[in-house]
C-alpha cells in the first residue's frame, strides 16, 4: 500500500531524510519512531504530497506521490504534527468544509461527519468554536478530519500528543480498530504506544532507518545486549573480582542486596550468552548462587541504544534484527 524507495529530502545542505526505504502492506499499522529532528514529520509530509522528495520514490495506494499527487490525496487521510484547524469555525462547520474539499459526495456527507464525531468523541463540543477548544479536543478534531472521508491510507503525525491518559487509550483503540481496513502510519515518541498499536516499527534516527521489525522481535532479538541479574551469597567485593574474570563480561554494576548477600547487573558482549560461564565461576569461587536471570531490554532501552550511540549500529547488526542501513 505504501512503498518508499531511497527517499531523500535535503533542506539546503542539511539532509533531513537520508535514503529511507520501507514498505507497508494493506491493513498494516506501522509505527514510526525516532528522537526529535529524526525526520519523521518530513517523511510523512512527503508521503502526504505536501513536500516533494529531493531523491527517491514513494508510492501510496499504488500512485506515485510526485507523478499523481491528486490520486494519492483522494485516498489519504493526514493528520499533520500541528492539527490544521480554522479557529473561527465550529467543529461541525469545519468538518463539513473538510468533507467538501475531500470530495465526499453530498448525500454521504452528514453520515460521515456524524461517524467521525462519534469515533473521536466530539459530541459535546460539536457546536463550539475550534479556537475555544482545549488542546486535546483540537487534536481530536484533527483526527476526525483525517478519518472523515474514510481513506484507504492514514498518515498520523503524533496522533496522541496532548491527550489525557483516558483519551490516549481510547485513541489507541480507535487506531487499532482502523487497522485491517485501513493502512496506517503513525509517528510517536511514546514507546508503549508502538507496542500496543503497531504491527511493525521503523526506527529512524538522523534521517536514516536504523531498525525495522515487529515490536516483539525488536525486544527479543536485542536481548543479547541486555543485562543479566545475579544474586550471590558471599562477600560483594570478592564476588565481583571473580565475575570480572569471566570472558565476555563487559561491566558489572553492583545492586543493593541484603546482609551477607551480593547482587549485580552484569553486562555481556552482544550475542554472547555468558550465563553458564557465570554460574560456574560463582560456584567454583565457593559462593552460593541464589539467582541468575535475564533482564530483557525494554523498547525504551532499545530505542536509546539504537538512536544515541554509534555502537548501536554494530549492536543491531550483531543481533539478527533486520538492518536497513549501516
Amino acid at each position, binding site marked *: 500500500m505504501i512503498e518508499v524507495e531511497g527517499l531523500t529530502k535535503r533542506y539546503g545542505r542539511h539532509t533531513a531524510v537520508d535514503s529511507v526505504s520501507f514498505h507497508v502492506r494493506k491493513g498494516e499499522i506501522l509505527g514510526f519512531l525516532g528522537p526529535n529532528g529524526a525526520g519523521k514529520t518530513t517523511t510523512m*509530509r512527503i508521503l*502526504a*504530497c*505536501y*513536500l*516533494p522528495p529531493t531523491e527517491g520514490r514513494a508510492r501510496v495506494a499504488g500512485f506515485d506521490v510526485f507523478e499523481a499527487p*491528486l490520486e494519492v*490525496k*483522494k485516498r*489519504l487521510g*493526514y493528520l*499533520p504534527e*500541528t*492539527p*490544521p*484547524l*480554522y*479557529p*473561527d*469555525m465550529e467543529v461541525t*462547520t469545519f468538518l463539513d*468544509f*473538510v468533507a*467538501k*474539499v*475531500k*470530495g465526499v459526495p453530498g448525500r454521504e456527507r452528514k453520515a460521515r461527519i456524524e461517524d467521525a464525531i462519534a469515533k473521536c468523541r466530539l459530541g459535546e463540543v460539536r457546536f463550539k468554536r475550534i479556537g475555544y477548544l482545549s488542546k486535546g479536543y483540537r487534536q481530536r478534531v484533527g483526527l476526525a*478530519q483525517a478519518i472523515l472521508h474514510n481513506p484507504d491510507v492514514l498518515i498520523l503525525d503524533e496522533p496522541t500528543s496532548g491527550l489525557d491518559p483516558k483519551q490516549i487509550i481510547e485513541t489507541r483503540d480507535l487506531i487499532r480498530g482502523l487497522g485491517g481496513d485501513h493502512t496506517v502510519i503513525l509517528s510517536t515518541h511514546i514507546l508503549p504506544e508502538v507496542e500496543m498499536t503497531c504491527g511493525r516499527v521503523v526506527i529512524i534516527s538522523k534521517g536514516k532507518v536504523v531498525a525495522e521489525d515487529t515490536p516483539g522481535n525488536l525486544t527479543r532479538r536485542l536481548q543479547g545486549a541486555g543485562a543479566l541479574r545475579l544474586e550471590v551469597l558471599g562477600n560483594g567485593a570478592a564476588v565481583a573480582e571473580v565475575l570480572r574474570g569471566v570472558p565476555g563480561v563487559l561491566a558489572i554494576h553492583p545492586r543493593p542486596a541484603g546482609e551477607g548477600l551480593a547482587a549485580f547487573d552484569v553486562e555481556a558482549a552482544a550475542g554472547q550468552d555468558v550465563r553458564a560461564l557465570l554460574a560456574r565461576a560463582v560456584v567454583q569461587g565457593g559462593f552460593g548462587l541464589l539467582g541468575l536471570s535475564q533482564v530483557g531490554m525494554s523498547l525504551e532501552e532499545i530505542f536509546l541504544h539504537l538512536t544515541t550511540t554509534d555502537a548501536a549500529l554494530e549492536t543491531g547488526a550483531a543481533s539478527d534484527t533486520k538492518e536497513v542501513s549501516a
Partner: protein
Amino acid sequence: MTAVRNIAAIVEKEWRHYFGSPIAWVALFVWTLLFGIFFSFGLSFFVKQSAMTAQQMEFGQKLSLNEYVIRPVFHNMAVVALFLTPMLTMRLFAEEKRQGTLELLATSPLTDLQIVLGKFLAATGLYALMILAGLLNLAMLWHYSTTPPEWKPVATGFLALLLFGACFIALGTFLSTLTRNQIVAGILSFCLFLGIWTLGWADDPTNGPVMKVVAYLGVTNHMEDMVKGVLELKDVIFYLSFIAFGLFLAHQSVESQRWRA
C-alpha cells in the same frame, strides 16, 4: 464538475470567515458610508449648479446627473478601493500559512489553481457586494428625479470599479502568498497598488513611447471610458489580462514554495 465544487467550497469557507469576523462588516460599512458621503456632496453640488443654469436660460439644457453626480462618485470610490482591497486580500494565504491550514488544503484533492481561484473569487465577490450596496444610494435618483439618469453608464461604471478592484485583488492574493504575516502582506499590497496607481499619472499625449507604456499599465486610465458609459473591448481585455497575470503569479508562488520548501 469537481473543480467547480472545490472552488465553491473554498469560496464558501472564505465568506464564512469574512462575515464571521469584522472584516466584511467594516469593509461594507466604510464603503457604503463613503459612497453615501460622496454621493450627497455630488448631489448638493448638482442641485446648486442646476439652479444657476436654470437662471441663465441660454444653456437651455438640463445638466446630466450621470456626468455631475455619478461619475465623480465612481472616481472617488476607486480611491477607496485602493485602501480597502488590501484588507480583503492580506489574510487569504498568509493566515493559512501561519495557522498551518495550508497543509490541510495542500494535502486535500484540490489543485493549487483551484485554491487560488477560490480565494480570488471569494474576495472579488465580497467586493462586488460592496459596490452593489453602494449603488443602492443611486436608486433614489430614479425614484425622485424628474429626468432619471441613464442606467448604462451606471452599469459600465460598476463593471469598471469591479474590474479595477479585481486587479488589485489578484495582485493582493499573490502578495499574500509571500509571507505568513498578514500585516506585512497588507502593507506590501497597499504600497504596490499605490505605485500602480501613480503609473497612470504618466498619461500625457506629449510623452515618449516609454512613458506611454507606463501610462498604459496604470490601471486607472482604463476606467475613464467605461465610467463615461463607453465599453471598449480593449479596456476589458486589459483588465482581464492584468487579473490573469496576478493570479498566475499567485499560482506560481504557491506551487514553487512547496517545491522549494
